[in-house]
């Protein structure tokens, strides 16, 4: 596997061991089935128990909650390997770990942590994260989903969420809503909403041309009654879901590298074996430039994510640094995937090869968790001090 700058030499033995174990799982359990699942437009649920046994869900959360207690570089390497398989598989794990388990860990009560985390780590309970709404994507502070506290301390939830990964598969939804009629984003709180609660429906969104091996759903809440202990007690304001997104975006920066690596490996192999004009196409300068560009961008992205992981482990990373990594790496991967697809000629449009699947997937990765543009504005604000959003 691609490691042009011998990054392995600065990984610890445990970091490499985690990477290698997930790599082997992906090679043996994901790659043989993912092309089909993608064409069929279904998330391959059959891999969930294996992923749970391996311990990838919420792997950087503490052992006392049944998680693996890994460092953030190990966690990133897991995301890289999963997305080397497919962005849909990595998305499943990102949502489960960073967007459903993390908020329960960070904002939940001890009872909520004990109830959910170890079973979610094992893949027995699947979670989803409902922030985006039909009319509020890049601007979640405008959300209109509303929870009202009743006299007995219970809650009634009304609203709709859209583009929710794992939405129809999930046993619990972590839903973000404003509270008690207050339209400001300071009133946003998180709620755990179990599937099957009366008034809560999840419907898959059809017709996706990207991330087809992933369930994406619309969630509707119509007078959904929730017990008092369904609220995440430590959540407060928009910054709570944004903290979750920082966790997930960090993992995405690694995941995108995995997709790019898969495309590069496929293109490299093809370039050495496809003979045209009596020689391997890899011998032509144009294809060599193409491969050299892909290689260079992948190595740069690897170094960005690795350093970001070290900063995260040291507790000194900033959300703006995460924005830079997500923005650069997702964009890099979309470019690499497209160039790989082109190098493959007509074969490049087949599901039998991975590049076009990754290319299509990465358009979602480019858009979700803060679009490329939104991260540009975050970085713009970070360096100029001027806020483009207001």
């Amino acid at each position: 596997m691609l490691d042009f700058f011998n990054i392995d030499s600065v990984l610890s033995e445990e970091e490499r061991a985690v990477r290698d174990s997930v790599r082997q799982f992906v090679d043996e359990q994901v790659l043989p089935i993912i092309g089909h699942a993608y064409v069929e437009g279904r998330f391959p649920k059959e891999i969930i128990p294996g992923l749970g046994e391996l311990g990838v869900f919420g792997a950087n959360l503490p052992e006392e909650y049944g998680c693996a207690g890994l460092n953030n570089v190990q966690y990133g390497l897991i995301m890289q390997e999963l997305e080397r398989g497919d962005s849909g598989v990595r998305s499943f794990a990102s949502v489960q770990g960073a967007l459903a388990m993390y908020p329960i860990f960070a904002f939940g009560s001890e009872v909520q942590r004990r109830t959910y985390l170890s079973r979610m780590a094992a893949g027995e309970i699947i979670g989803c994260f409902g922030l985006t709404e039909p009319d509020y994507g890049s601007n979640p502070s405008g959300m209109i989903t509303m929870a009202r506290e009743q006299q007995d301390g219970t809650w009634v939830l009304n609203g709709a969420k859209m583009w929710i990964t794992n939405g129809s598969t999930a046993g619990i939804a972590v839903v973000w809503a404003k509270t008690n009629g207050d339209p400001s984003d300071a009133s946003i709180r998180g709620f755990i909403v179990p599937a099957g609660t009366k008034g809560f429906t999840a419907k898959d969104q059809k017709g996706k041309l990207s991330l087809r091996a992933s369930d994406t759903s619309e969630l509707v809440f119509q007078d959904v009654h929730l017990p008092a202990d369904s609220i995440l007690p430590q959540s407060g304001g928009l910054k709570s879901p944004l903290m979750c997104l920082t966790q997930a975006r960090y993992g995405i920066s690694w995941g995108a590298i995995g997709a790019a690596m898969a495309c590069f490996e496929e293109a490299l192999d093809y370039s050495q074996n496809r003979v045209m004009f009596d020689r391997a196409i890899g011998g032509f300068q144009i294809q060599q430039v193409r491969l050299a560009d892909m290689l260079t961008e992948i190595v740069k992205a690897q170094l960005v994510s690795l350093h970001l992981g070290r900063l995260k482990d040291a507790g000194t990373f900033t959300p703006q640094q995460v924005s830079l990594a997500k923005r650069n790496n997702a964009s890099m991967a979309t470019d690499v995937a497209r160039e790989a697809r082109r190098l493959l000629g007509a074969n490049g449009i087949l599901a039998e090869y991975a590049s076009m699947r990754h290319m299509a997937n990465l358009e979602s990765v480019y858009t979700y968790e803060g679009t490329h543009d939104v991260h540009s504005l975050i970085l713009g604000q970070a360096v100029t001090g001027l806020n483009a959003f207001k």
Partner: protein
Amino acid sequence: MKIAVCIKRTPDSESRFRIAASGAAIDDTGLKFDIDDFAGYAVEAALQINEKAGGGESVVIAIGPDSVQESLRKAMSMGVDRAVHLKADAVPADGIAIAKALAAELQSGGFDLVLFGKHSFDSSSAVVGTATAELLGVPCVTAASELSVTGGTGVARRELEGAAELVSFPLPAVVTIDEGVARPRYPSLKGIMAAKKKPLETKPAQLGAARVTVQKAQLPPERPAGRIIGEGVAAVPELVRLLQTEAKVL
């Protein structure tokens, strides 16, 4: 049961190999090493036997430089309880020299079963397991594709050309393991973190004298380029003739 698994660390079989400057070994640079495939099956077999019995102890043993500790920890991350590293600068080519060091370690260990891979990918001698059994004075079953233990008796299945046989043997015993026993499990992420805390003992390997040494290592010859005899039906008679007279495969 107390089970020892002797593992070898070998390069990934799909690597592109080069001959080292000495001319008598492969060049290690850039190669990825891991537990040898058959030894991996042996580790899995040991774990399953003890899991089925609901208890016991498994110990993994390897000879070699410090780098073998990574493979020992991998076996522990799969679930093996502890590891012994028999330190040597290099693993000799003489399987009996290796077996002497292993037997010296195993002798007083009180093991019910000692498992090996049926042979290692990089030397293919299939000597170490059988020689160790002889040195320990215990029965030896080679190339077991299934293995079970009840009471003090083991039963192993061996795949033969077009048939299979079941053999039984008293414990303690040495069994060398073929694939088919059970796919080695993936080291779980928790297992990887737990392996760091499991005991790994290092001592010098008491290797026997190496009477067999490698004189020269060679890569397989490059496959000669193909030859196009003709096209379509017209070329078939000539193709058949060449397959009979030149390639001698028909």
